[in-house]
């Protein structure tokens, strides 16, 4: 049984769009998407699926919703893409609205189910294809559409005006100088080793993270720069809203900024989906087999500079700490061991969630789900009870979340399920617990 409360959610983006949707148009769009090259692989999957339901237990939404069969990964495909294929696109607007809810809110494309299906069937890609169809038809939840609009208009996710961005950098540099005199955030420095990029919510609401990273970069002696021009934002909600043209456009801006500045590699802050967009989905659409320059996730950067002794930890947390493995950098890039190396350097008492590493449960915020906004918040939180239980069992008082979506998602979980816990990025711990150069801090 799909959740009645979810079915009654009013999302302006969906309501308005389906009101004006003709069945001819739906059929035309589905037909064109399903005749494209990528769709072939999906058809093969559908023919291979033995309908065994073994993927069900893999999905946090299914487990969290008391094993509601409609939340099994295979069911989500059965209710959306499979019908579109079988009916050759002859579905109505109500069907599309329902498909949009399933595809945008009930699946975050975390790919966990692919690790539990004996055939490795790529449910996430099928769901993303449904999103693509929805997007072409304009049937997209209002809030994630708005972030996509922002990407379209501004190249960043949060309508950040160029002057606000630059001003924030200057202000964060001045702030960080109080911590570390002489510190700099070099802007647009050609030939630097590293271009550091962030997601737009940082300048918007968490600007201190930029100052924190500046401290780390300066202490570690990294030859780095940030871009004052567009391309500074690595986030990409268009990838999740199904607007592949905007997805590709902003990844192009992002990578070309790095190439223009002739840096050797890009380092990005603690974000998972941005990693995925910059390393896989974006380049792929643009014709690159991989990113044109190496992309180093913050976790890898911390790992490298800790291992090389470029920064030193002088203070360790003793409270029980647990670690959220972000899907996009763990299942998506195998960074779990490096993540643990970094956390072990900072915390004495790590209590693991179970299961973890590649088998972690998603936070239910990623994949664009949290970006569907307030109308869907309750639904999202119902879909992630299992994470609340996992977190609760650790007895930890701190959950380390090296991803913006995880961070925000787990904060919501903590609030909703009243856990006694807080979240933190690694960076926030790092700046507090690392050794500052002589005479800087008492």
């Amino acid at each position, binding site marked *: 049984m799909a959740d009645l409360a979810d079915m009654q959610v009013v999302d302006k983006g969906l309501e308005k769009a389906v009101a004006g949707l003709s069945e001819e148009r739906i059929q035309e769009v589905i037909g064109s998407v399903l005749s*494209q090259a990528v769709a072939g692989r999906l058809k093969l999957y559908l023919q291979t699926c033995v309908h065994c339901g073994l993927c069900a237990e893999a999905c946090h939404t299914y487990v969290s919703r008391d094993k509601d069969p409609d939340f099994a990964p295979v069911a989500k495909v059965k209710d959306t893409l499979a019908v579109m294929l079988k009916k050759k696109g002859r579905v109505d607007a109500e069907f599309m609205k329902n498909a949009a809810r399933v595809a945008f809110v009930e699946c975050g494309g975390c790919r966990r189910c692919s690790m539990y299906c004996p055939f490795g069937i790529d449910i996430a890609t099928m769901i993303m294809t449904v999103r693509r169809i929805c997007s072409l038809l304009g049937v997209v939840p209002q809030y994630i559409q708005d972030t996509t609009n922002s990407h379209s208009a501004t190249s960043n996710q949060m309508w950040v005006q160029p002057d606000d961005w630059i001003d924030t950098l200057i202000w964060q540099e001045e702030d960080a100088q109080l911590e570390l005199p*002489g510190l700099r955030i070099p802007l647009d420095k050609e030939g630097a080793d590293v271009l550091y990029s962030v997601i737009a919510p940082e300048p918007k609401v968490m600007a201190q993270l930029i100052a924190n990273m500046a401290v780390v970069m300066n202490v570690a002696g990294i030859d780095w720069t940030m871009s004052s021009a567009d391309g500074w934002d690595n986030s990409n909600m268009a990838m999740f809203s199904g607007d592949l043209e905007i997805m590709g456009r902003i990844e192009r801006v992002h990578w070309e900024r790095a190439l223009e500045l*002739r840096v050797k590699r890009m380092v990005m802050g603690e974000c998972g989906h941005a990693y995925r967009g910059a390393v896989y989905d974006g380049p792929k659409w643009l014709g690159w087999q991989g990113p044109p320059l190496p992309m180093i996730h913050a976790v890898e950067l911390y790992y490298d500079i800790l291992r090389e002794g470029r920064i030193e930890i002088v203070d360790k947390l003793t409270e029980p700490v647990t670690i959220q493995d972000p899907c996009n950098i763990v299942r998506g890039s195998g960074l779990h061991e490096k993540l643990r190396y970094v956390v072990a350097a900072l915390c004495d008492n790590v209590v693991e969630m179970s299961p973890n590493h590649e088998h972690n449960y998603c936070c239910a915020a990623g994949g664009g789900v949290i970006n569907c906004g307030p109308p869907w918040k309750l639904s999202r939180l119902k879909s992630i009870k299992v994470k609340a239980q996992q977190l609760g069992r650790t007895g930890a008082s701190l959950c380390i979340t090296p991803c913006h979506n995880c961070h925000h998602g787990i904060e919501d979980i903590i609030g909703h399920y009243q856990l006694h816990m807080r979240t933190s990025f690694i960076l926030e711990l790092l700046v507090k617990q690392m050794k500052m150069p002589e005479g800087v801090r008492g």
Partner: protein
Amino acid sequence: MTRSASWSWETGSRTLADLGELRAVHREVHEPAVSPDGERLGVVVVRGDGAFAVAENGELWEPELERAWHLRYTPDGRLTALVRIDDMWTVAVDGEPWQRRFPFVWNTGFSADGRVIAAQVKEGMEYTLCVDGQLWDRSFLSLRSYALSADGRRAAALVQVEELAEADTEKFAQGTWSVAVDGEPWEQRFIGLWSPAISPDGEMVAVQARTDRFEYTIAVNGVPWESRFACVWEPSFRPGGAGPLAPARVGSTWRLMEEGEQLWATSFVQLWHLRFSPAGERAAAVVAPEWGRFTVAVDDRPWGCTFGDAVLPPVFSPDGKRVAATVGHRRRWTVAVDGQVWEESFDMAWMPVLGPGRGPVLAKVQRGGEYGLAVDGRLLSQRYELLWDPVLSPEGDKVLLRGVQGGKYVRRVVPTGELR
């Protein structure tokens, strides 16, 4: 006459600035900029008392600055900086701040001849453009990028002209953006606009226009091309040509379009960075003949060699006969000239520099954290802490080298034949 003809091409070297000395005196010395003729080096310094200043060839600019950044030389050799004085921002040119001060000003841009300087401005809560110290009459909800005509007499900018409430996706889809030319916006509204370009004669303004959620085209002076595409990239004007050219996506491949009609016969997996020979008779672009492989196509003919990481915008020789580009493959960078890849590769390579005729191809490169000059694929032994792109004399017989060695900025002119 090429501007560089008036520069000093006397062979020999001159030390013009000493960064080491500046570092000894000042608390901070930022990244320097060098004038096109190599005669001057400007750099932002932070003095002991925390005040910012700009030092040019060691001499400090007069005014006290709370902050200075974004040092850029105009093509005609004037030094510009974005500066904050009394909590307000402005542009300073050769040490003279503009009269007008703004809550914020950024992204200085110059006409090709360097005579006109423009910058984006925030005034009150609105945005506008400032051209040579003069604000446009109108200001806008947002202004995101702009272009100047070659002579600087015309300016076009992408502007948001309709209010947009938070998360108002419906209004957004109706179009909230327009192009303002010399401050006057087009009547037409678009969902999205990118990369304005002005024709060489200054008569046409072309932009990438998003006409519907999934419909793109090129708009010229407010009028969209008739054909619509799945996506488009930046339009550009052929010297001596008529309307703009732009890559457009049809299905899942890219084609080169001229005024809405397909120009090159081939479709590519990717096609971007269209460039023209100086006289306009040839065109080159970065293309991907197959997924994951990039190269340069000249007049629809791709080079035989392809590269996995990236091919950067191609560049023609002054006579239009040769084409070169920076290429990246397996995390190494080098240069390819007319489809021939240099033997040596580097940590990074800059835009190749070509002279007329069959002269050598030069490029600034980076290896092991140091800069050097590569000539026809061979890295010369000289190393630099900092190096700017080499400049060939109009006849191509001499090279101007601008680099910092041992903390000292040295301007050198070397006969091309003596490059070793």
